[in-house]
């Protein structure tokens, strides 16, 4: 198994603050905007961004988790069912601008399911997608991110591994892994 470092800790910090600046540019005071992290792995990045944003604009921004497991299109089509995680959206998303946050954008199917899952909580005015790693050439659906940490050319057989301190790792690091 070969591992290649895509983003190290310092670069990741810079990328997170750049993404936050872009968000502030578009959402200004965040008066109508909410941040929703995708379960299970996107929530750590979402938390990082959310904290950074609140520090920058000095006001609270509604923050939640969304789990799309029950809305996936591959149910009964894979060996094992995917484990479901908690949904926590303690605010109304009707009429709000939603920024969906996930760590890696690959085929786009999770985001398709997430949009479905989100509609069950209300009709947002606008939905944007922020991802840390955008895997180019792997999309199976017409889905594109609005904010990207880094775009990487990957093959279908490769995997992107995100290690964040919030997940219990020593340092924030993102790897590209070649499966043997």
């Amino acid at each position, binding site marked *: 198994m070969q591992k290649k470092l895509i983003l190290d800790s310092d670069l990741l910090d810079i990328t997170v603050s750049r993404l936050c600046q872009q968000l502030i540019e578009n959402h200004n005071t965040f008066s109508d905007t909410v941040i929703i992290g995708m379960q299970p792995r996107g929530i750590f990045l979402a938390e990082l961004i959310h904290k950074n944003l609140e520090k920058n604009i000095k006001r609270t921004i509604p923050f939640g988790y969304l*789990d799309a*497991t*029950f*809305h*996936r299109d591959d*149910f*009964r*089509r*894979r060996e*094992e*069912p*995917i*484990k*479901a*995680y*908690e*949904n926590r959206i303690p605010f109304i998303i009707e009429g709000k601008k939603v920024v969906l946050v996930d760590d890696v954008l690959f085929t786009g199917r999770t985001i398709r399911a997430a949009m*479905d*899952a989100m*509609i*069950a*909580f*209300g009709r947002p005015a606008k939905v944007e997608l922020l991802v840390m790693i955008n895997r180019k050439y792997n999309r199976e659906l017409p889905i594109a991110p609005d904010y990207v940490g880094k775009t990487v050319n990957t093959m279908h057989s490769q995997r992107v591994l995100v290690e964040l301190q919030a997940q219990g790792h020593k340092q924030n690091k993102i790897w590209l892994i070649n499966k043997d």
Partner: protein
Amino acid sequence: MSKLSQKHLLGIKDITRDDIELIFETADNFKEVINRPIKKVPSLRDVTIANIFFENSTRTRLSFELAEKRLSADVVNFSASTSSVKKGETLLDTVNNILAMKVDMVVMRHASAGAAHYLSKHITANIVNAGDGTHEHPTQALLDAFSIREKFGSISGKKIAIIGDILHSRVALSNIFALQKLGAKVMVCGPPTLLPKFIGQLGVQVELDVKKALQWCDVANVLRIQLERQQIKYFPSLREYSIYYGITRKMLDDLMKPTVIMHPGPINRGVELSSDAADSKHSIILEQVENGVAVRMAVLYLLAAAAG
């Protein structure tokens, strides 16, 4: 682990503790779903489920049907009283005819113990046993245990007394298996004629005095006297049963400790449970009903996933 060890849910005896915990974790997610304004997810949209009820039911059938609909499954209902079973069709023929119409899962209640087991040997669709005679009623036991877990945080080490007609109760047997697998201490209590002779061999305590049972337990799961299954008289009269075994509000208040009252329904008010006890703060009977839908959604979801 995110997969059940079994293809069917025939009884709690056949599944593992890991299975039960997986069902509970999944049910936690579904409980959140059914408390949303939009109580529906599309997971089972390409699955057809037949609810085949050879015996009467209100709660279980409604609960299964709601669970199926909230998972977006297609549902067909069948009840023996209005069907060709009355014309002499066998169980296997009836079910095979239903399956020939491309049904993926079967939820079945039958008056004979082992009916679901028998069916599982002959058909390929997933089967959920919704009660077979006096044998097992797995989803009821799961929702009872889920409700206890919700109330106390965990089941391990808790003392649960099952009080009433143990002899004719499939709920009792499934509950004993489920609670023991989850590490609870279980006691059964009832008149000697309504306790199976060798029930002690299942590792449960046996108590004849309902007051002592209530004093001992954290949770009392009170069962109905199943008159429809009793061919002979097991006690002199319902009045006498309620005097000796009926649970009243006063008995619960006199305990000076928080004892939780559960009942799988339907309640015969004034027989096994007085109205003021059933409606008291001790009771979590309506929580059980709510949890029933979430637990059944979890069971159907996990079984349907295994079929893929």
